[in-house]
């Protein structure tokens, strides 16, 4: 019992390890947390066998819930381990303390292995459910990105070194460092202090643009509250639940809050959102500027507006920024709520990307150039993988904001004022790059990076098998006869059981019980069918003699059976061939049909 409880505690511990990964915005997450907490409370007081048995089942259920919530590689491995432990606990309870820990583990492994074909069939064929659990959107972001920017409201920014996105490139190499801009949000509405997103695009109607045919990039984004995903701004998504909004945002139809793996194709093409001509309404929205909120900024911008082309105005702004004594810092202090951008541009002149992007975009609008703020990630570190390839590791601390300016004939042009002020922030190859990157060496970090790369590949393989991939597989398997899916599923499950059950039997035969002992059990079962049961503590010779007294016709085979078995069990071991022959003889001495012919004398 103590061992069972220890195994239960171990299983609960393994589940507990996964709890921090849960997204508390999902109702089911609370269910999982409650299961683990209640399980621990129950286990504290559970003593009876029935309670402990239920505890094992609870562990298995909780593992299933976790698997639904956390499909990544690390959690998946933990879940497999938890299942092993729960099964071992169940086995330890059912089979008593006779089994060594090694045997327990081996048996759990075999159980798990036996379930594998079934898992595979269900994974491939069971229809995927749509989004079941809806999540309230637009809560305060936990990640480095939020859906509004308000310079001056944050006095200091803590660099969160949590992973944000991993990107694998089919071509092998990532873009050059100055080109690594991963857009997420486009902030188009400006009220003098803060930049906000436009109202989301109306729900998509009509035909979607065709999905890309082949994969160029594989993305794995950590959970976020936004219904948007990072991307490079080029190419097309491969999954139908992803679409590109008119502002160049990659919109995710599935509820956010879970880790998302997605693929992009045709990334060598310029996308429509970038070059499509602006409507008059769009131009008005992109130049809207609340007058009087930041008078000095307004005056400076208006000064550039007269008689210059937009390109000239952009260049003038760049020269102005370079001429000022701006300083890049993550601790700029707060700005006055009255005209914060004025305070930043002309008084403090200290800030990080948000300050520069917000102020520069406002300046451009004051100068009459359509402009907007883009928030996302910039940079990322290339991590080479063992066995070739690699991935780009983008962290939450790589969160960045920059501007886009509309230039006729060019389209939306990316402008990053932070890069003018602090080139090292944008291009870590330059001297003076931040220390964080220098510190990232050592075997532990290397291991972690390799692990993340493995995780990315796992996602590519397993999570990439989505509804479309499944539909394609079914199409190949069934053609147009989709109604037959149920039949196919049944057949596959039946096949799995047919494969699995013998496997389990085979496992039993090899699991601790030796073949000689099995012959004894067989003989006992056959005698039991005749109505003879060994009494407590009776030995084989005594039992056989007792049966023989009642069934004299069986005396000879019974005596031979007992003597042969005892000689094999307790006598000097013969060669392997002799042992096999003896076992065969044991099986024949008390044959299966013993009960069917009680009157026929046995001559053995």
């Amino acid at each position: 019992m103590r061992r069972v409880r220890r195994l239960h505690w171990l299983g609960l511990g393994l589940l507990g390890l996964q709890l921090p990964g849960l997204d508390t915005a999902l109702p089911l997450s609370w269910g999982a947390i409650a299961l683990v907490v209640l399980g621990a409370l129950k286990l504290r007081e559970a003593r009876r066998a029935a309670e402990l048995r239920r505890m094992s089942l609870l562990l298995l259920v909780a593992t299933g819930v976790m698997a639904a919530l956390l499909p990544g590689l690390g959690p998946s491995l933990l879940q497999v381990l938890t299942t092993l432990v729960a099964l071992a606990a169940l086995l330890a309870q059912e089979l008593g303390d006779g089994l060594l820990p090694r045997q327990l583990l081996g048996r759990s492994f075999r159980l798990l292995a036996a379930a594998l074909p079934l898992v595979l069939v269900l994974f491939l064929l069971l229809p995927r459910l749509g989004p079941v659990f809806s999540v309230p959107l637009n809560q305060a972001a936990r990640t480095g990105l939020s859906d509004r920017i308000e310079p001056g409201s944050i006095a200091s920014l803590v660099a969160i070194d949590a992973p944000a996105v991993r990107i694998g490139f089919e071509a092998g190499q990532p873009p050059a460092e100055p080109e690594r801009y991963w857009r997420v949000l486009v902030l188009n509405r400006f009220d003098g202090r803060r930049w906000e997103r436009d109202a989301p695009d109306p729900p998509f109607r009509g035909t979607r643009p065709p999905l890309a045919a082949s994969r160029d990039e594989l993305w794995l984004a950590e959970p976020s509250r936004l219904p948007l995903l990072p991307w490079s701004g080029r190419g097309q998504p491969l999954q139908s639940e992803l679409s590109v909004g008119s502002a160049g945002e990659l919109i995710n139809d599935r509820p956010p809050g879970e880790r998302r793996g997605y693929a992009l194709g045709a990334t060598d093409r310029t996308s429509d959102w970038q070059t499509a001509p602006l409507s008059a309404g769009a131009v008005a929205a992109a130049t809207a500027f609340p007058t009087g909120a930041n008078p000095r900024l307004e005056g400076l911008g208006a000064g550039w507006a007269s008689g210059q082309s937009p390109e000239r105005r952009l260049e003038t702004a760049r020269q102005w920024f370079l001429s000022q004594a701006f300083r890049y810092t993550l601790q700029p202090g707060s700005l006055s709520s009255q005209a914060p951008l004025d305070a930043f541009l002309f008084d403090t002149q200290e800030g990080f990307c948000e300050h520069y992007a917000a102020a520069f975009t406002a300046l451009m609008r004051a100068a009459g150039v359509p402009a907007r703020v883009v928030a996302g990630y910039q940079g990322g570190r290339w991590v080479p993988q063992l066995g070739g390839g690699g991935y780009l590791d983008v962290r939450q601390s790589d969160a960045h904001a920059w501007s886009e300016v509309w230039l006729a004939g060019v389209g939306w042009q990316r402008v990053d004022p932070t890069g003018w002020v602090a080139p090292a922030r944008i291009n870590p190859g330059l001297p003076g790059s931040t220390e964080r990157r220098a510190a990232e060496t050592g075997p532990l970090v290397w291991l972690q990076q390799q692990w993340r790369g493995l995780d990315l590949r796992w996602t590519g393989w397993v999570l990439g098998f989505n509804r479309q991939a499944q539909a394609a597989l079914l199409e190949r398997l069934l053609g147009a006869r989709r109604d037959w899916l149920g039949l196919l599923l049944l057949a596959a499950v039946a096949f799995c059981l047919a494969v699995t059950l013998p496997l389990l039997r085979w496992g039993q035969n090899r699991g601790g019980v030796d073949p000689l002992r099995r012959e004894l059990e067989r003989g006992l079962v056959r005698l039991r069918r005749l109505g003879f049961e060994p009494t407590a503590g009776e030995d084989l010779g005594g039992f056989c003699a007792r049966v023989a007294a009642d069934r004299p016709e069986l005396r000879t085979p019974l005596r031979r059976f007992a003597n042969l078995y005892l000689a094999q069990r307790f006598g000097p071991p013969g060669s392997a061939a002799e042992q096999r022959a003896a076992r065969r003889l044991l099986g024949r001495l008390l044959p299966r049909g013993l009960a069917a012919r009680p009157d026929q004398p046995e001559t053995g």
Partner: protein
Amino acid sequence: MPQRVVEHIGRVLLGKDREIRLAVACLLARGHLLIEDLPGMGKTTLAEALARSFGLGFKRVHFTSDLLPADLTGIGVLQPASGSFRFQPGPLFSQVLLADEINRASPRTQSALLEAMASGRVSVDGVSHELPRPFCVIATQNGQDQSGTAPLPESQLDRFLMRISLGFPARAAELALLAGQGLGSEALEPLLNPADLEELQRRSAAQRAEPALIAYVLDLVQLSRQAGFNGAPLSPRAAQALLAAARAWSLLEGREYVIPADVQAVLAAVCDHRLDGGEPGSSSSRQLQAGVDGLR
């Protein structure tokens, strides 16, 4: 050969094959035997027949309350000629000693005997004297007549490998006895010699005991130590005794390996007097045997 000894003694002690077999097994396992029975049941006959069959020296001491240790071990006798003491060995210096009614002696005398049984030597006046080999004590005690006796404490009972009781003979056996078909033990010819006995003792100790068999012995012993078991826990010496006796029994069965049936055959004789603190007629070993799966 050992089976023939059993038949041989059976010609003297009629109808007591099983008890004879146990007694021989005890001798083969180098153990000492405690026979608990009424007077006139053939205890002396058995002991004498055992000694004679193996050609061993045999002495008998009837224990009384005034028996002193020196009466058993012997004393130093003054030699007037040389002025020195010469050791005069007592009855302990024999190969088979029948200690009749051992529970009538004082605890002090009992201790002297049991010490000699355990160590195989005797110290008198500071000089150590080796006892002859093989050395076997067959003690008897009368369980029913308790007045004026000092029952052996449990710790000393543990030194006896087996406790048996002969019991009344079956009617047919007693008939044969009365008809004069039994031999007098003094008429018994030696069948073997002491060297043969030592050889048999060696063979007995070398009988094959597979791990599965030893596990069975261990299960029995450990069951006796579990809470809720009705009896005193068995000591490791008891476990050794059980295995040694089972080995000797398997040799008598003509097998070269031990099976659980051998253990069960000697279980009551080896364990009952240890389990129940020497109460006469106890049978806790039955509970023990029923508690452990004998189908191995």
